[in-house]
């Protein structure tokens, strides 16, 4: 049962598309506070009626907390997911003024930018991807492309345009022969290339690394690519803390002589570190260890 390529906006599936459209609509017309009121019934709805995501959430929280989650913790898991999706609307509209952001490790990004040899940005389906753009705003002239599958790219591109037509997020589509040649050219021009490195698609090649004590499979591609091109690698996680607060971490992933396997192990170690501290920011609502 290989799932079709999906990005994290489409999980949990089906009913949430409508729910999310409603949030976006309310957010754009009425603002953040009224839209946030809607997060309560939406989260409750998921908790009560979305059986598969609820099971996945329960399994995840049990592993991350070391005990079965309480009802409230599961509610908070769905609420965090919905809150970051709502906030995406504002973040893509450059309403960074609405938020209290704590940026940690921005020097790693500044140094990579100053070196001019390009940089890989590795994220995960963990917390808010949009809030990590904060660093791009501090660094005028920074050229960031996202590497993702065409189907997602089109949908995300359409979403971004719907929210903010002026925003020029560049996307390098995966799945064509030239994809990686394009990545190299972008890096050579000093650009940053972002990838989400936690989710495998279909029968994609994988590296098995222990994650929260159990071997899990991570996609080989991002790590192979980073090991091959030898550019700085910066991990970034935009963790939602509640209210209007986010904590954004940028961490340099030291390459040295690391091969893909070493890079993956290091990435997973840091992901695990942050995920344990903020388990409700985990947005893979499927059996991650399958």
């Amino acid at each position: 049962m290989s799932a079709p390529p999906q990005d994290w906006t489409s999980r949990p599936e089906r009913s949430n598309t409508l729910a999310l459209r409603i949030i976006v609509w309310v957010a754009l017309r009425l603002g953040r506070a009224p839209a946030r009121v809607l997060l309560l019934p939406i989260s409750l709805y998921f908790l009560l009626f979305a059986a598969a995501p609820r099971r996945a959430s329960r399994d995840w929280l049990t592993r991350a907390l070391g005990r079965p989650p309480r009802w409230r913790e599961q509610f908070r898991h769905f609420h965090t997911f919905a809150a970051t999706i709502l906030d995406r609307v504002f973040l893509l509209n450059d309403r960074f003024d609405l938020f209290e952001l704590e940026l940690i490790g921005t020097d790693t990004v500044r140094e990579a930018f100053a070196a001019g040899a390009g940089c890989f940005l590795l994220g995960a389906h963990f917390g808010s991807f949009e809030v990590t753009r904060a660093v791009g705003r501090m660094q005028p002239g920074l050229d960031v492309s996202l590497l993702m599958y065409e189907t997602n790219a089109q949908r995300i591109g359409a979403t971004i345009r719907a929210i903010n037509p002026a925003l020029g997020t560049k996307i390098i589509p995966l799945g064509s022969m030239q994809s990686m040649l394009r990545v190299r050219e972008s890096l050579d021009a000093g650009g940053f290339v972002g990838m989400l490195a936690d989710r495998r698609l279909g029968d994609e090649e994988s590296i098995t690394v222990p994650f929260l004590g159990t071997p899990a499979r991570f996609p080989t591609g991002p790590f192979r690519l980073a090991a091959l091109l030898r550019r700085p690698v910066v991990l970034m996680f935009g963790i939602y803390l509640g209210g209007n607060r986010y904590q954004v971490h940028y961490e340099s992933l030291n390459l040295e002589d690391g091969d893909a396997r070493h890079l993956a192990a290091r990435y997973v170690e840091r992901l695990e570190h942050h995920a344990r501290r903020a388990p409700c920011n985990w947005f893979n609502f499927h059996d991650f260890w399958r």
Partner: protein
Amino acid sequence: MTTTAQSADESRLAALIVEALNLELAPQEVDPGAPLYRDGLGLDSIDILEIALVISKTYGVQLKADDADNARIFGSLRSLCDHVQQHRTK
């Protein structure tokens, strides 16, 4: 696999590719007429990048992402070899 004979240049390129990608076959087993990407040799986009890197290093030929002829150039070992021989600077 039906293997037509490789030319000397093709053999050399096949050896480079097999070595760079750590393929589990002998260079002479690469069918010069078969596609490199996906079917045929079964390479992915990162493999194509590795080939581009090793070709740039060995022959001084830059393979570009936006070359309209890429499908043809990477269409087979033979066409890749022809392209490299035409444009090589070392």
